[in-house]
């Protein structure tokens, strides 16, 4: 079965710098990959979706890349702000079902 690794449990970044989070998967290449933000005690909120035929997608200060050769997605937040502090989850589709599986998340802290 597919496994997802977000290889940083926690990441601390100085305000204004670019935060880069990593998501690796182990088996088949998914048709798409999603990134979510989760604040403490709340449900995740969808941020971006990137499909297997897309190399990069942007939304305001967010950028996601998808490298099917490396089996990896990178999630970037440029000009980071303390309000960006949260846990970020990547998720990808299960090939034969109407469901996605989530990574364990990376807790991002932006210090002023």
């Amino acid at each position, binding site marked *: 079965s597919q496994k997802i690794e977000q290889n940083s449990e926690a990441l601390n970044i100085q305000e204004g710098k670019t935060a880069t989070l990593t998501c690796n998967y182990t088996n088949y290449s998914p048709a798409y990959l999603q990134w979510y933000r989760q604040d403490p005690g*709340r449900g*995740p909120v969808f941020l971006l979706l990137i499909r297997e035929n897309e190399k990069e997608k942007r939304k305001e200060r967010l950028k996601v890349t998808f490298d099917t050769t490396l089996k990896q997605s990178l999630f970037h937040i440029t000009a980071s702000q303390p309000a960006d502090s949260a846990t970020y*989850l990547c998720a990808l589709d299960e090939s034969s079902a*109407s469901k996605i599986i989530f990574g364990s998340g990376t807790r991002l802290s932006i210090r002023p």
Partner: protein
Amino acid sequence: SQTIHQWPATLVQPVGSPLSLECTVEGTSNPNLYWYRQAAGRGLQLLFYSVGIGQISSEVPQNLSASRPQDRQFILSSKKLLLSDSGFYLCAWSVQGKDYEQFFGPGTRLTVL
């Protein structure tokens, strides 16, 4: 616009007691529905998902069950709670199809004592 409701927000239950968590979605039809559990500091574990009324797929063997009595209603149940059932339970919905984002409810914090 679409909204998703979950209740209760918090729940404290003794071991061996029953459980019923309810989730309803408004503003959409025939959604996919999902139940997740999240242990403290951990990722989301998919428990059940449903692509239609009465259609339930179970992901993890356990003492929980799910039902979908109406198109936009999803219920998570247990006859006898275990200590290990404690956690943050999240309901989510998505549009039918595979490459659509999921929209999550506010969650229920369950503590089993």
